[in-house]
């Protein structure tokens, strides 16, 4: 790449080296009568990888989706990349203390990769990648294209930049989705079961890309069912059970913890 691309990859710039990139305190979330999160606290140190594991319905996707406010917690506090929010509700049920500007700023710093890829089918691969940098971060088209090409190269999809998503395999689509997230140059990358919708042969190409990002020292928070992978790449593992954190710590600690033995045993 050209010399200008070097600036793109400086992703680990820190404002305050010791503050965690994400810190959540006592988050609760209820859907109707269902208590999905019952007071979850979590800290993701800058430059580290945290994986959330747990059975279906344990609340792990909800927890992840709270991090970019696709779900709004009912209560608790969240500090993400210099934005701090304390969740309380006014009588109308709206969240107080969160204005639209803060929401946009926060979302521009937290990029998400979805289980179902969720690429925009009417835009080309490059179009998908440059959309948010142009519209949200006000990059010029030229800058956005340079960024986009850089990150498409990074995930090995540069040669398909003009293709539409419908012409790509699932693994290729997910790699484009990762490039789309990277092009926002986010402080934190969120992965929501990034390989669950892929057939087995395609899983490794996506895991390979994610492993590479982990090795670069990016801050990542990941929900996954790939136990081997989670154990291998994570600095921290969080085992969520019925809306509580049942175990957390280094991968080895969590895998050896009696409370999640039953869950991780087949993989360990």
């Amino acid at each position, binding site marked *: 790449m050209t010399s200008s691309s070097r600036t793109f990859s400086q992703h680990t710039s820190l404002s305050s080296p010791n503050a965690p990139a994400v810190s959540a305190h006592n988050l609760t979330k209820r859907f109707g009568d269902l208590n999905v999160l019952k007071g979850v606290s979590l800290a993701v140190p800058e430059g580290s990888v945290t994986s959330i594991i747990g059975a279906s319905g344990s609340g792990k996707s909800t927890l992840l989706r709270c991090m*970019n406010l*696709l779900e709004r917690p009912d209560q608790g506090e969240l500090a993400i990349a210099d934005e701090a929010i304390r969740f309380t509700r006014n009588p109308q049920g709206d969240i107080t203390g969160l204005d*639209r500007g803060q*929401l*946009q*700023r926060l*979302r*521009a710093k937290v*990029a*998400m990769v*979805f289980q*179902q890829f*969720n*690429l*925009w*089918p*009417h*835009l*080309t691969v490059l179009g998908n990648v440059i*959309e*948010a940098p142009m*519209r*949200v971060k006000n990059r010029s088209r030229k800058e956005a294209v340079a960024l986009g090409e850089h990150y498409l190269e990074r995930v090995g999809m540069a040669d398909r930049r003009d293709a*539409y*998503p*419908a*012409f790509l395999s699932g693994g290729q689509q997910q790699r484009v989705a990762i490039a*789309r997230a990277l092009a*926002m140059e986010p402080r934190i990358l969120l992965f929501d079961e990034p390989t669950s919708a892929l057939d087995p042969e395609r899983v490794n190409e996506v895991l390979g890309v994610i492993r590479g990002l982990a090795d670069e020292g990016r801050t990542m928070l990941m929900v996954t069912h790939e136990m081997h992978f989670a154990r291998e790449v994570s600095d921290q593992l969080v085992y969520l059970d019925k809306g509580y954190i049942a175990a957390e710590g280094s991968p080895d600690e969590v895998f050896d913890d009696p409370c999640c033995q039953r869950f991780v045993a087949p993989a360990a």
Partner: protein
Amino acid sequence: MDFSWLSDPFYQEYLWQGFVNTLWLLLVSAVGGQLLAVGVALARLRGPRPLAWFAAAFSSVIRGTPLLVQLFFFYYGVGHLLEGVPGLRETWIWPLMRDPFFFGAVTFICSVGAYSGEVIRGAMLSVPPGELEAGRAFGLSGRQVLVRLWLPRAIQLCLPTLTGEMILLLKSIPLVSTIALMDLLQAANIIRDETFLVYEPLLLIAGIYLATTVVLTATLRLVEINFPGMRPRSRRWLPVR
């Protein structure tokens, strides 16, 4: 079969006029109607309660009454009422108010707005929510999600149906011959009255409608095929079995 009247320049002029008026009315109604349709769909899905209610009522009334009745309603009813408005005769709007083309266009715009509005509303509801969620997750505003993601995707999904709506519109246009607008049917009527030939002029304009429909279908199919992001199998001229 006697087509000797075709060589008469007066009849040629009628037919040409009729053809041009038909196409103009089609174009104006299609463009205006689709814009209204997007408005109707948005009002029903995202509008404040009273506006959503009004849009729903509009759709029901337009779709629940005959097009010919609507045309008469606008031309005779509203047109007549407007004559009573003091001072209107002196404004620039007045010549428009005397023009059957204006009332035809208003009627068809409302009709397309109501029918296509429901089609577009349905298509908007069938855009996978994850795509819009991805837009929000990346910080796009509600308006950006709508303009950049939601509407283009909805239109992509319902293009074939909208093509059908446009063909129906083309074939509704002969109704305006009843309000003294020189469209193709009106031209045929005049030729019939003067030559006492019933079938020949009708056959001719039927052929013209058919040819126009074929061209219209092919054009819109071309738009469909070239719409960004169409699935590979939708890009063929003929549907894949």
